[in-house]
């Protein structure tokens, strides 16, 4: 049997808004093997961050089971959760706004160590901070530097060092490189890969950059309006996308090469409102293959080993 670090079953997160119920995450299930990366992609507002945060219980899920390292963490109280959360960390998109500007690099990295009482004496803490800085490639001379004096790539390294401080097994990386330019992006992606090998980390990697997710993930789950519409090993997903939304998504990636232009599938219409959604396929209104069968929600079904799709019209595409 596979060694799963994480199992998510029927996860739901609904928000009550003035205009009605917003189904941000709606019945999402998946598993993540230890040491592997699951990429989570989909358009803005489809529920990627909410999924990540619900799993860490940084926000309370409306329903569903989260089994982390064999523990049913959805049943834990807030204080019990605090112990588990050391093993589960989050890296944010925006290295600029997620760091306290009044703290130095070393203070920022020491913060979670001190808050969680992982080390007692100042010299122990300093030693651990120095070790973490070297792990993420921050030069020792930056010990007393403030984040505003650093470039985006180094600030993101601080965020990574803070996450690693707890010696986690699992990290949700929420758009960790979206704010960085291509060269610095490459540095950070390499670092995350090295750390994964070194510490056998498991990642959920959230992004809307499909070329990055392809490079980085073992499996990719495509979300659309709160639901996973397709999930497959990365190579399989890119080689053989089945859901009409996935097809459109992949065809829309601009490729930095000249030559024959690809056939591009342009999705018509606007993103459907996530509030008070009818019980039909979430992609119904924008799908060019939509038919009567799509007026009920299609289940996510395995069509070949490891390749899952939620679409009622696969036979007619």
């Amino acid at each position, binding site marked *: 049997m596979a060694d799963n670090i994480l199992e998510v079953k029927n996860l739901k997160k609904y928000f009550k808004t003035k205009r009605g119920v917003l189904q941000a995450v709606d019945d999402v299930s998946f598993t993540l093997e230890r040491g592997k990366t699951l990429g989570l992609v989909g358009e803005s*507002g489809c529920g990627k961050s909410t999924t990540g945060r619900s799993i860490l219980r940084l926000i309370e899920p409306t329903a569903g089971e989260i089994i982390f390292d064999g523990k049913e963490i959805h049943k834990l109280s807030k204080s019990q959760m605090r112990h588990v959360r050391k093993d589960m960390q989050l890296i944010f998109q925006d290295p600029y706004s997620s760091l306290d500007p009044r703290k130095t690099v070393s203070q920022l990295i020491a913060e979670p160590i001190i808050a969680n009482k992982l080390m007692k004496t100042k010299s122990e803490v300093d030693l651990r901070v120095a070790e973490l800085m070297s792990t993420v490639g921050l030069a020792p001379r930056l010990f007393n530097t403030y984040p505003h004096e650093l470039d985006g790539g180094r600030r993101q390294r601080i965020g990574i060092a803070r996450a690693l401080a707890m010696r986690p097994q699992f990290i949700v990386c929420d758009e960790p490189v979206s704010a960085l330019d291509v060269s610095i992006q490459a540095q950070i992606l390499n670092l995350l890969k090295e750390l994964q090998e070194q510490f056998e980390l498991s990642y959920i990697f959230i992004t809307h950059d499909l070329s990055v997710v392809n490079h980085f993930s073992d499996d990719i789950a495509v979300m659309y309006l709160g639901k996973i519409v397709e999930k497959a090993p990365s190579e399989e997903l890119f080689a053989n996308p089945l859901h009409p939304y996935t097809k459109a998504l992949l065809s*829309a990636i601009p490729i*930095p090469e000249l030559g024959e232009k690809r056939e591009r599938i342009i999705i018509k219409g606007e993103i459907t409102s996530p509030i008070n959604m009818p019980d039909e396929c979430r992609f119904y209104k924008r799908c060019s293959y939509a038919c009567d069968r799509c007026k009920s929600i299609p289940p996510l079904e395995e069509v070949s080993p490891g390749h899952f799709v939620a679409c009622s019209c696969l036979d007619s595409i």
Partner: protein
Amino acid sequence: MSQTETTKDLVLDLENLNVRFETEDGICYAVNGLDMKIERGKAIGLVGETGAGKTTTALSLLRLVPDPPGVVECDKMVINGHDMLNISIKELEKIRGKDISMIFQDPMTALNPVFTVGDQIAESIMLHEGVSMADAQRKAIDMLELVGIPGERAGEYPHEFSGGMKQRVVIAIALACHPQLLIADEPTTALDVTIQAQVLDLMRNLRQQYQTSLIMITHDLGIVAEVCDDVAVMYGGNIVEEGTLEDVFNHTLHPYTEGLFNSLPNINDRKAKLTPIRGLMLDPMDMPPGCPFSPRCPYADEKCDEPQVKKYVSETHAIRCCAYERPGFHIDRKER
């Protein structure tokens, strides 16, 4: 973008642009001797790492660089026949929007939350075309439909629109008076690929329809390949390589351009390790005397400590780099 531009119909003729920011911490040399010429109807992609001076160059063309701390110096800046260096504020206001117009990166800050989107487009039309409010309103609705938003939504406020729709409203405003030169500063970074594809498609159609010239500022070389005719690669406040797409993508000559392409994930080999450009980002307060890329350049030698002059290697392809003249020099582009 060519050596023999005298007879060409230029929408932009810019020579020796220098912009520095005089701040308390020191002087930031943001743009350093930049030339740019754009023929009518052409689209040029302006790429380069963060802090390279792309936005500052664009703001200089609109004469919108904040002063202080900005100091702009320039030998020549002619936009659609207007000498931008000797012009009254009043004329400038007319030129902005009509001759040159800019799409700013963040659609949220470009729109005013207290006016309906229709009124915001109409206002720009009224200012430039001198038509009545009623006519401007009608034209605003046409513009909305042109960018794919139903006209009846003109009475809605920006917060009622999704990110992609807001960005299209910003584009509608920028295009309302059919500018001759459109600058788009990362117009789609806030958008998803599917919406991005819609917006790029739209810009392409409008450009064909109105012969608009375009400066597309972006980090995304894929977008450049898709929308542009020419590319200018910036590093340290100047263009280090420029040419047609074919020149720059397939016959890369500058080591920085090489590094930029080689940092991209390889689509065919998922397991390949990424190769970022080595060394530290340039500090524009502490510019090296010669080539700004030399401290990070794998090909650098002592000749690179001298200022680099622009050299044409063909009719269309120019670089600022002395390395390619050395015997045996060749750029190492990874297989993609």
